């Protein structure tokens, strides 16, 4: 019952009372049109409609910011619905870009009403389901609300930036060929060392320049095997490490970085796993290929920052989730206390690469910088530089990434330079 029906009933009742009190038959005559109107409303009062909703999405898996076409078809399988207000409920952070998700229509028996609109959403996983239908009488005095179900699911995955192959040198590699030098002799393209010539060695492998120094000896070039490895990506989703400004959250950049890094390693054929550390532990078991890429992107789509007393620090990072001696990529703005766990990881034999977004430059973008802020910034930057220095001293590679800049460039600058240094000092060949 609507408020209008209440009003009408109240008017009829009041007129009755007025007629009764004043003994005027004319007032009773005034009631008659209202009573006839009310009777018509009751005659045409709607029963529960038999409607069926079906939903089609142009795609179920898209990058955030990409538009999705939603098509909703309501079919009437019962009596003629004279006035139905159909409203498709948009889930969570999905918003309508164009078209209509609401319509007022008359649906004849067997008839259809179609709604088409374009929606886009923020990173996440969303369930479309409820369609609210309000059926009213032709006079709009009695309404019936029905919720139809038209389920569909859509993933808005994080944006992936194509990165060049990341030149890492983990201690352990797998048996399959890949892009990572394995510190073992085998068929590869990088020079690894020399050995005495043995019968059967192909002639093209003989190092003639070295052999020329000896009278009766030949030397053969050895090459380094290139293999794939295990990569464990750890995304720091602790709420206290996130910085939220008017332009957005730093965590979004970190998610994008995780997606890009995972994509780069998977493209190289490596086995990649993901751990989201924040309100809990969300782990994606390591795997290869396109399916694993999809799994990781879906996990990242769902990733949210959170706080938990247990996971306030990285102390409970379950290192056993990743194979021993594998490469760990930690994406975190880091806090001073994290150095302990990084030392522990290194001591366990993992190769650690930290992608550390520069929080200062991100935060300062939206601030008015005065003299005191400038001094504060210098102090924070110095602290950060010392912190990074300390990590580097422990052979932890740290990519100091300004989120506005290119991640690819930052990784290549840091990792390639470190490998050149290692080669220079003879740590690797």
């Amino acid at each position, binding site marked *: 019952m609507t*408020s*209008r029906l209440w*009003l009408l*009933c*109240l*008017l009829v*009742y*009041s*007129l*009755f*009372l*007025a*007629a*009764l009190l*004043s*003994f*005027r*038959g*004319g*007032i*009773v*005559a*005034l009631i*008659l*049109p*209202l009573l*006839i*109107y009310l009777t*018509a409303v009751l005659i*045409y009062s709607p029963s529960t409609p038999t409607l069926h909703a079906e939903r089609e999405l142009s795609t179920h898996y898209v990058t955030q910011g990409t538009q999705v076409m939603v098509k909703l078809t309501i079919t009437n399988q019962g009596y003629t619905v*004279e*006035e139905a*207000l159909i409203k498709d409920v948009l889930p969570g952070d999905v918003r309508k870009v164009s078209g*209509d*998700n*609401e*319509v*007022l*229509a*008359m649906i004849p028996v067997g008839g259809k*009403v179609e709604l088409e609109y374009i929606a886009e959403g923020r990173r996440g996983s969303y369930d479309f389901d409820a369609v609210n239908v309000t059926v*009213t009488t*032709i*006079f*709009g005095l009695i309404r019936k609300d029905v919720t139809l179900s038209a389920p569909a699911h859509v993933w808005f995955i994080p944006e992936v930036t194509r990165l060049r192959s990341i030149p890492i040198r983990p201690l352990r590699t797998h048996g399959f060929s890949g892009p990572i030098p394995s510190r073992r002799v085998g068929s590869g393209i990088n020079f690894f060392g020399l050995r005495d010539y043995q019968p059967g060695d192909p002639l093209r492998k003989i190092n003639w320049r070295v052999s020329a120094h000896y009278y009766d000896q030949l030397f053969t070039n050895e090459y380094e095997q290139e293999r794939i490895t295990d990569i464990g990506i750890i995304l720091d989703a602790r709420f206290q490490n996130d910085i939220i400004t008017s332009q957005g959250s730093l965590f979004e950049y970190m998610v994008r970085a995780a997606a890009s890094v995972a994509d780069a390693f998977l493209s190289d054929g490596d086995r990649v796993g993901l751990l989201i550390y924040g309100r809990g532990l969300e782990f994606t078991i390591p795997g290869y290929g396109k399916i694993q890429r999809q799994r990781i992107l879906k996990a990242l789509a769902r990733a949210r920052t959170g706080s938990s007393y247990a996971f306030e620090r990285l102390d409970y990072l379950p290192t056993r989730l990743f194979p021993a001696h594998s490469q760990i990529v930690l994406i975190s703005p880091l806090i001073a206390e994290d150095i302990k766990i990084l030392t522990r990881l290194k001591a366990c034999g993992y190769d650690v690469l930290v992608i550390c977004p520069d929080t200062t430059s991100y935060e300062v973008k939206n601030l008015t910088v005065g003299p005191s802020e400038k001094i504060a910034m210098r102090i924070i930057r110095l602290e950060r530089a010392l912190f990074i220095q300390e990590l580097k001293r422990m052979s932890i590679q740290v990519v100091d990434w300004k989120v506005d800049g290119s991640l690819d460039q930052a990784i290549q600058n840091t990792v390639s330079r470190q490998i050149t240094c290692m080669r220079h000092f003879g740590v690797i060949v």
Partner: protein
Amino acid sequence: MKRITCGLFINILLSTGFLALGSLLKGDIAMSVLVGITGSLWLLAAWRDWKWYASLGLIIYMVVAVYSIISGYSPLFSLVSVVTALVAWDLFDFYWRVKRSVHVKNLGDIAPIHLRRLTVISGIGLATGGVAMLMQFRIGFGIVVVLGLVAIVMTGWVISMLRNH
């Protein structure tokens, strides 16, 4: 939609006109002016989309119609005014529902059906009311008892409905 809007404005004007005319014929200028102001405000409300005013307008018109009958003005004017006010109130709501919806499909089907039904029902209401008035319906003791019983039953019903609400 144009027909609905036209119908709405015409019915407000008719309702106001008949009620004001009824008062004016009996020399009650103050009442005609009051009705005129109420009607003008209703027209303004229809133009400015003040949804709340339609119900207020209907209540005012009902009260004035009852007052006119009690004061001995021509009941026919009151009856026509009440019927047209009811039509205006209904059309205002229909207009509002259509306007509020972002998108309307088959408006060409919905609006004529609504108008047709409303015309038939208001016509029947007007005719029945007219006949009742022509019959010079007088309320005797028996009718008062019946109406009293109806009033008691309705009061109980309203109270129980309000409780359930």
